[in-house]
């Protein structure tokens, strides 16, 4: 069963440079049998990155994945508040570079119209779009999206491939919110390994809409893999969640770039 990890970061790891850090991450990925890592955002994170900071973060990822092209993919970090700079980054990192996806975090809630040009362009380029979401009973950050915001975006962009980060955090509500919208996929990463999350995702979305990710280095590979290994689901579903779904979503853009997997 080949494992691809949808959700990795370079922060919180030893190493002075992005490639040193990714090298370290790959050492642990090897221990856990993970073949490929999707990496996004830089060495230190910014909630509301400036155009310069976006370039710096994406440069870090480009440098890291450039060193390990057969182990890691990059997603371009964008900020909807900076439309032109984000479109420029999309062209630089995805159209002209090796990146295969987009990462949107907490700069602006994703139901905002400012996302439209970015989603449209990313979809033209066949990039998958990863949107962080959380439903926090303790209160979201001002620009932090909920799965409900993502649903609004998905309705406006039925051809986009959208991934609901953390399945909304409060996954019992998040999974329900995205359930009717077939172009939204569930990221299992980044929450506690609470038993039942994967079973519910498979039951409500179908195994082909559920994707393993870890959110390392803040989380462990161990706790997040356990969500898939520990779930009471058929092995055929496990195979989809651990790698085949992500492969299927990335195949068009990888094909365009001449990357065979």
């Amino acid at each position: 069963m080949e494992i691809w990890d949808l959700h990795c970061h370079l922060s919180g790891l030893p190493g002075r440079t992005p490639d040193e850090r990714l090298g370290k991450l790959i050492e642990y990925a090897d221990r856990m049998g993970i073949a490929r890592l999707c990496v996004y955002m830089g060495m230190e994170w910014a909630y509301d990155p400036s155009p310069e900071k976006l370039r710096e973060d994406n440069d870090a990822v480009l440098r890291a994945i450039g060193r390990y092209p057969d182990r890691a993919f990059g997603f371009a970090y964008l900020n909807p508040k900076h439309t032109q700079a984000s479109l420029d980054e999309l062209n630089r990192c995805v159209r002209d570079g090796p990146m295969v996806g987009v990462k949107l975090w907490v700069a602006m809630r994703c139901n905002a119209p400012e996302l439209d040009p970015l989603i449209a362009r990313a979809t033209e380029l066949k990039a998958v779009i990863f949107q962080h979401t959380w439903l926090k009973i303790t209160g979201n950050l001002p620009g932090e999206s909920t799965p409900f915001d993502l649903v609004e975006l998905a309705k406006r962009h039925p051809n986009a491939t959208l991934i609901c980060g953390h399945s909304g955090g409060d996954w019992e509500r998040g999974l329900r919110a995205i359930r009717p919208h077939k172009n939204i996929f569930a990221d299992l990463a980044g929450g506690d390994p609470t038993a039942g999350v994967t079973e519910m995702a498979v039951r409500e979305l179908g195994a082909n809409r559920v994707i393993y990710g870890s959110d390392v280095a803040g989380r462990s590979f161990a706790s997040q893999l356990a969500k898939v290994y520990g779930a009471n689901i058929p092995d055929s579903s496990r195979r989809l969640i651990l790698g085949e779904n992500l492969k299927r979503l990335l195949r068009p853009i990888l094909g365009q770039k001449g990357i065979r997997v």
Partner: protein
Amino acid sequence: MPRRELIDVNVNLSRWPMRRVPCDDTRELAAKLRRQGVTQVWAGSFDGLLHKDVASVNARLTEECRKHGRGLLLPFGSINPMLPDWEEELRRCAEAHRMPGLRLHPNYHGYKLDDPALGRLFKFAAERGLIVQLAAIMEDERMMHPRLRVPPVDTRPLARLLKETPSLRLVLLNALGVLRGPVLSELLDAGETYVEISMLEGVAGIEKLLQHVPLERVLFGSHAPLFYCEAARLKLKESVLTQEQLSQIRAGNAARLLASAQSGA
């Protein structure tokens, strides 16, 4: 200690109040833990969080452990020192149920750690050689039920309390997500305090933990069945550990703690 031993110090029987989880049936849970290679389980009860009739909670816990455990499950009784005559409950745990230890949930039971009742409870537990397990939190604060928001236990008064009860053996459960750095070190220095790995996160978490926590204070815990029990075992695989480190965390430390508590040493 043979390497195949694995002692899980953080398990609960019965039902999580907010949802059914796989294996919230004792027989299924015991079977699953056995398949994971677990050889001994320190089991509390989810019922201990909210039930007021703690006497029946502890009686059921003892009975479930006996019926389904075949020597696997050791009961750790719930004590709520805010309930009338809790001292009798502690006596029953020790004498009637012959439990090796107790489990506390100060945040669910509504007291602070500087409450004088807790000082008395620690003293009684220490005198009777009962291990005390104190759960810092049960689930991510961000996704709690809106009508049941229970913040993590504020552990600041604990160091002083530990110094006042030097013979107490304390295991902090679910603590490594909320307790780190100097705050954690202070508690480890203040007495015979242990932590378990169920809520430890980060790549190679155990390797990093051992840089500032003494090996002999780290126990294996899964927080099953609320958490997938595979998570804790996979953490042992993710970190690069020596055979000695592995065997102490898997079972050596917990076995020594249990033996010393039971011998009153």
